[in-house]
């Protein structure tokens, strides 16, 4: 019955469709570029996309300049993201009877944005693929493997499970940084310089991660975010050890092998599956490379991945080097290499020769100063700090957030939803200026849930064991701001 039937088995649907295709009656199927679950009956797929297209067209009657964001019904939320002009991604999530399926539209949209950004980094824009091959076989093939592998991270048992209210102190699409003392920062700086000169006259870019935290980057913010996200999903030591329980928002606790996407993947270009789990493994030389056995069926030597960096406007090869908890992502401009694999081998050799010692030193110093998974825990506070301009966030460790009562998290989720709406209202009314905003709520269960935006930076908080008065909450925010945010959220 209805298109809900298809989703029932999986709890969710994800589709990508192109409104420029299939405009003739009877050709509607041609619009669909990707649909999960793949075994969903065609009529149901058409039904989902038909409603989405109808609503997109309908809302444009009133707001031609703005995209449809969500259709909310009693049993499901359908979240929209126009990834590229006329190419839409829609996530349909089913609600359960309890409050467990309470989520935030912005958080679900973040998944679509992240999936598209990563896809573009590996395969380029979808429109370019469609232009290159108008039959859309190429685009469909890449989307099928890529998105299926991406979705595997959300599998819990047989169902897809997306972030809920329990994740309201996390922010997808941001980087988590490691705070480094000045002395170590100088060492890192020096290492970055050495990494940059591995190719000789052309500068290489690099990202350095410690555990799942970013230490340094030479890329612009958006490109950094994409590569960082990828690294935390698949490349850091935690990501590589398949059964590790992750504390990063980017990874779920359980690791489920996506397995072969579908036996019907004929016609796709086999091989290019950067998100396939366990594709990478660390070699003896310290470099992380695609695993022969786990991936390619064609038997060819796996090639060094090449990525497209939108902000840097450059294609670059990615070399991954790992030393204990330190992961180095070295990026070699594609235009600077005449012979791909030879050139890369040369760079790797240079890197080992010139940077090995520095890498060891940096790793040692970082490990010595590292406070572990709870390094950024602040006693008494459950918080999330977001700097959207720098795409950086810091939050209470998830292990600590789980101690919050369900009602506190639900209230926080609801507050964040309100703040999301206020933020977009502000953006529409005056995109150039940040507007300050503050809300403190004393909930039914005596928790303070707080949101404060000051000069574009955002702070969300839940204080469960606080005093009753509003002044208590204000003082708590003030203390936190002064001690951990350089006074960014302080009143004076």
């Amino acid at each position, binding site marked *: *019955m*209805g*298109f*809900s*039937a298809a989703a029932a088995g999986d709890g969710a649907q994800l589709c990508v469709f192109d409104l420029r295709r299939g405009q003739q009656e009877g050709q509607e199927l041609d619009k669909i570029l990707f649909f999960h679950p793949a075994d969903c*009956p065609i*009529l*149901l797929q058409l*039904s989902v996309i*038909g*409603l989405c*297209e*109808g*609503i997109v*067209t*309908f*809302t*444009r*009657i*009133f*707001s031609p300049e*703005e*995209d*449809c*964001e*969500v*259709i*909310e*019904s*009693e*049993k*499901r939320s359908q979240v929209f993201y126009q990834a590229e002009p006329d190419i839409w991604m829609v996530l349909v999530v089913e609600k359960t009877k309890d*409050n467990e399926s*309470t989520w935030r*539209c912005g958080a679900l949209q973040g998944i679509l944005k992240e999936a598209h950004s990563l896809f573009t980094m590996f395969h380029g824009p979808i429109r370019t693929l469609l232009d290159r091959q108008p039959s859309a076989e190429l685009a469909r093939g890449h989307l099928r493997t890529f998105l299926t592998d991406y979705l595997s991270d959300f599998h819990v048992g047989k169902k897809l499970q997306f972030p809920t209210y329990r994740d309201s102190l996390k922010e997808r699409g941001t980087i988590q940084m490691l705070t480094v003392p000045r002395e170590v920062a100088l060492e890192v700086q020096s290492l970055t310089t050495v990494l940059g000169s591995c190719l000789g006259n052309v500068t290489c870019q690099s990202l350095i991660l410690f555990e799942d935290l970013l230490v340094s980057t030479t890329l612009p913010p958006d490109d950094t975010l994409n590569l960082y996200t990828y690294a935390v999903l698949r490349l850091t030591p935690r990501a590589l050890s398949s059964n590790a329980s992750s504390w990063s928002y980017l990874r779920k606790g359980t690791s489920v092998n996506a397995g072969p996407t579908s036996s019907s993947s004929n016609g796709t270009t086999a091989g290019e599956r950067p998100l396939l789990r366990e594709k990478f493994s660390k070699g003896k030389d310290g470099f992380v490379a695609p695993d022969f056995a786990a991936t390619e069926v064609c038997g060819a030597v796996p090639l060094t991945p090449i990525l497209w960096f939108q902000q840097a406007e450059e294609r670059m090869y990615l070399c991954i080097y790992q030393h204990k908890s330190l992961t180095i992502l070295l990026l070699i401009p594609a235009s600077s290499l005449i012979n791909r694999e030879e050139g890369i081998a040369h760079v790797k050799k240079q890197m080992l020769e010139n940077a090995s010692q520095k890498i060891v030193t940096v790793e040692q110093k970082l490990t010595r100063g590292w406070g572990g998974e709870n390094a950024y825990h602040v006693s008494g506070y459950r918080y999330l700090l977001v700097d959207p301009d720098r795409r950086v966030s810091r939050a209470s460790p998830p292990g600590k957030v789980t101690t919050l009562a369900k009602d506190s998290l*639900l*209230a926080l989720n*609801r*507050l964040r939803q*309100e703040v999301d*709406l*206020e933020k*977009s*209202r502000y953006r*529409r009314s005056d995109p150039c200026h940040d*507007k*300050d*905003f*503050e*809300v*403190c*709520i*004393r*909930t*039914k269960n*005596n928790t303070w849930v707080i949101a404060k935006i000051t000069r574009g930076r955002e702070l969300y908080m839940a204080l469960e064991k606080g005093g009753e*008065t*509003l*002044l208590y*909450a204000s003082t708590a925010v003030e203390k936190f701001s002064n001690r951990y945010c350089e006074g960014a959220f302080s009143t004076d």
Partner: protein
Amino acid sequence: MDPPPNPNPNPTDAQPQAEAGARLAALSLRGGRDLPPDFEIHEHHLDDDDDDDEGYLTAASRGGSSTCAWKGLRDDDRDGDDVSPPSPSSSGYAGERGSSLDDDPEPEPDPEPAQDWPRDKKHLDEDDASSSWRKRKKHFFILSNSGKPIYSRYGDEHKLAGFSATLQAIISFVENSGDHIKFVRSGKHQIVFLVKGPIYLVCISCTEESYEGLRGQLELMYGQLLLILTKSVNRCFEKNPKFDMAPLLGGTDAVFLSLIHAFSWNPATFLHAYTCLPLAQSTRQAASAVLQDVADSGVLFALLMCEHKVISLVGAQKATLHPDDILLLANFILSSESFRTSESFSPICLPRYNPMAFLYAYVHFFDEHTFATLLTTRSDAFYDLKDSRARIQNVLLKSNVLPEVQRSLHESALHVEDLPIDPSSQSASQPPQSSRDMSSQSLSSEMAIGGPAGLWHFIYKSVYLDQYVSSEFPSSISNQKQQKRLYKAYQKLYASMHDKATGPHKTQFRRDEDYVLFCWITQDFELYAAFNPLADKTQAIKMCNRVCQWVRDLENEIFVYGESALSW
């Protein structure tokens, strides 16, 4: 254009989608066609047109039977989120309002006489192809589940048949899958749906109101419809799914327009409480006593009201009147000219009391503002109620109630400037008007920033009494645009505090560019207060406490409180 109803929908069938698609395609084709030149001319300003209020002054209805009788209301339809004054070319309407709308923040004391207003504010010349129509800030639609238009705030329902069918297609598409659509959000636009059996209600708004707020407004629209027709209208749809309901509502446009207008000025629409006219306890007791007397002789409810404010109300034993019913009833009476011109006996339904049945309302206006409503279940009670009314009138005249009501209407409002500095030093029974006199000399310095500690305004709701009292707006919120913005902020605050899953919360502090807002909910009361955005938190909290004390000190005057309230 009206599709046949689908009693046995097959959800897997792609037909609904195809139908919806076809309709949407038809819509976009219509949108693409060349518009008549008059639309093009005023297109630039319609964006600024405040639809929120527009139309409430218009009593002209489809049937053309009603006329405007809004002498008491101020000319607030012109404000809103306007940035620039509407062009004089706008259907001849704006021109009459003069050209200095925004230059003059004071509302005009004496609006244009009713007959000078143009035909109506429904903009019957518009339809979904008009860019002017598309730019209206807030649309309300009522349609049947077969897609037949029943009511539209703007445009001619007949011309909107195609649009209505599209709405029906969207709703039915989701309904057919065993689900119910709640809302769609697209940028600043929100489309909120409410399905009530065979009747669909839709609001399309870019007013930034919350989903809960807009849904509540649709509920009231539906309630208003039931008040006129009762729920038994559903039977007509059972007999004939293509039943055309619009004619049944003929002549009631003004009622809906007035209700829609209330959404932006009347806190009762979201507080689910009613407000009373401040009166000395003895005056109110005199009124209550005679109402009680009348109620004992077979009247179900007896209400005495001044405009939207209750003077006294009495119910027969065990019968209770829901605040929403009071709101809808008062709206119905005050927006229908015929009630003012003669004593009336009219069938009405109180949707919260019994949505299935009609009651009979005897309505009589004692003066321009004050009226009695006697509700009975007996359709033949006109003469009995007429006699009862005469008795009431006698007592009101003898006890000097009506002049007191007039005086209160003009003088008794609560002003934040009058908030006692030290509550303990104020006499508990001091009527608000005298405290205003006392402090009037020192007002000038406070007026610039509102009341003490930057207090601008408050609403206090007594949970136990289902009644609220709100202060007058200070000079810092003098124009309608500012007042409406504050009400919207209160509405959001209310929705946030009363969240279904987690609420009601206990307190909330909210600071943005426009205000500092406070909300405080206890078992006994809810306080909503607005301060200057730079207000000091500590001082503001003190003020809230003082407001609560002040209201408690005055409760005998500002609430219907006592024997009459306890008797039902």
